[in-house]
């Protein structure tokens, strides 16, 4: 088809992981280009002048910024297989609503857990767990939030749950017995090659976060 697909990324970014999973699910050939977030390339600054952040998807020279917008774009362009959004308008709106909820609220709380101490940290963890309960209700008995296959909500949750639960970056605070469906879902996702090849190695991630913790404490 002659498509050129480049992803400007930073390997540990959960936002980059989202776009990669979408590309993998659709079987798209792409070039993953690592950016040094402390020394951004001229290409990144040119392709994302407003926010200067990764990930940026570049399709035949045209940039698509913001991870979820890139995922929807991927779904619309490569619409011959693995739909990431439902076809029914109401189901689609629900998927977008919950994805927005995870992307804004839950990711924000995760940052709060990371940055705070003591009582504030405990309160943030509680808040996160409340959100997780609501999300678990959305899953119900489906294998994935997208039904039989990964959807937009799965994609936004995978990196978050990977870091907060599987890799335990913020400490062990998600009790497996209280969230059996989410935990089972998370394991199910990790078994998919399209997901596992996008998740960075646990040890590497822990090293980065450990260094960030040191920098934070300085």
């Amino acid at each position, binding site marked *: 088809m002659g498509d050129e697909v480049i992803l400007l990324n930073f390997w540990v970014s959960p936002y980059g992981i989202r776009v990669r999973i979408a590309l993998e699910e659709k079987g798209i050939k792409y070039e993953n280009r690592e950016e040094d977030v402390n020394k951004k390339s001229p290409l990144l600054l040119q392709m994302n002048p407003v926010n200067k952040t990764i990930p940026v998807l570049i399709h035949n020279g045209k940039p698509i910024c913001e991870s979820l917008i890139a995922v*929807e774009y991927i779904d619309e362009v490569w619409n011959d297989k693995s739909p990431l959004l439902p076809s029914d308008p109401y189901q689609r709106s629900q998927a977008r609503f919950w994805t927005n909820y995870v992307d804004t609220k839950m990711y924000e709380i995760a940052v709060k857990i990371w940055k705070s101490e003591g009582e504030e940290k405990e309160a943030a963890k509680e808040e996160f767990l409340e959100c997780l309960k609501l999300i678990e209700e959305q899953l119900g008995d489906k294998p994935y939030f997208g039904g039989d296959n990964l959807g937009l909500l799965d994609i936004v949750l995978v990196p978050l749950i990977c870091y907060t639960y599987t890799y335990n970056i913020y400490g062990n605070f998600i009790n497996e017995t209280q969230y059996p469906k989410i935990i089972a879902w998370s394991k199910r996702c990790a078994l998919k090659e399209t997901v596992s090849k996008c998740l960075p190695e646990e040890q590497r991630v822990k090293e980065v976060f450990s260094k960030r913790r040191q920098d934070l404490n300085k």
Partner: protein
Amino acid sequence: MASEHGEEVKVLGKWSSPFSNRVVLSLKLKGVAYKYSEEDFANKSDDLLKYNPIHKKVPVLIHKGNPLPESLVIVEYIDDTWTNNPLLPQDPYERALARFWSKTLDDKILPALWNACWSDEKGRDKAVEEALEALKILQEALKDKRFFGGETIGLVDIAANFIGYWVAILQEIAGLELLTIEKFPKLYKWSQEFVNHPVIKESLPPRDKLFAFFKASASK
């Protein structure tokens, strides 16, 4: 014109809120009939608590008994469901751009303008600088088009309703000059096209009422 789907469309909103207004604009542009219910935040209705238990905020669209919060999610739903007068372009790349600018409006541009208009003396200079920067990037996105949507009102125009209408009122109350014809000629021209558009004109909250409402908040 009644809803094509023969089912009731209801909007829980607040007259002074640009977010509620986005939903009203979208329905009106499509000619969709709906029932509007004004929410009093001091006394949240049973409907609101039932239909948006998570955020307890307006706007909420209820279609065929199904509730949907979040103004931009609602606007896309309206566009998906009532396909006349499309608010989003057909081309996937143009759609991605429209979504990007709508998100940037909510994440960056609206907050910058809001903060500037409500800033105290201490933070004013910096807030104003950020607001002007935000307007600059928005104007660049407009290029030489009549509307962000091209010849017709689109998603980004609707998302920018706060800029097109609310900012003029708030900056007057704050005694600031942010969106002016001198500073941002193209964007200013767009704002005039926006507020004078026949459908938009009749769907915006009355200026005097909005001015009085925000002036009262400012004196608190």
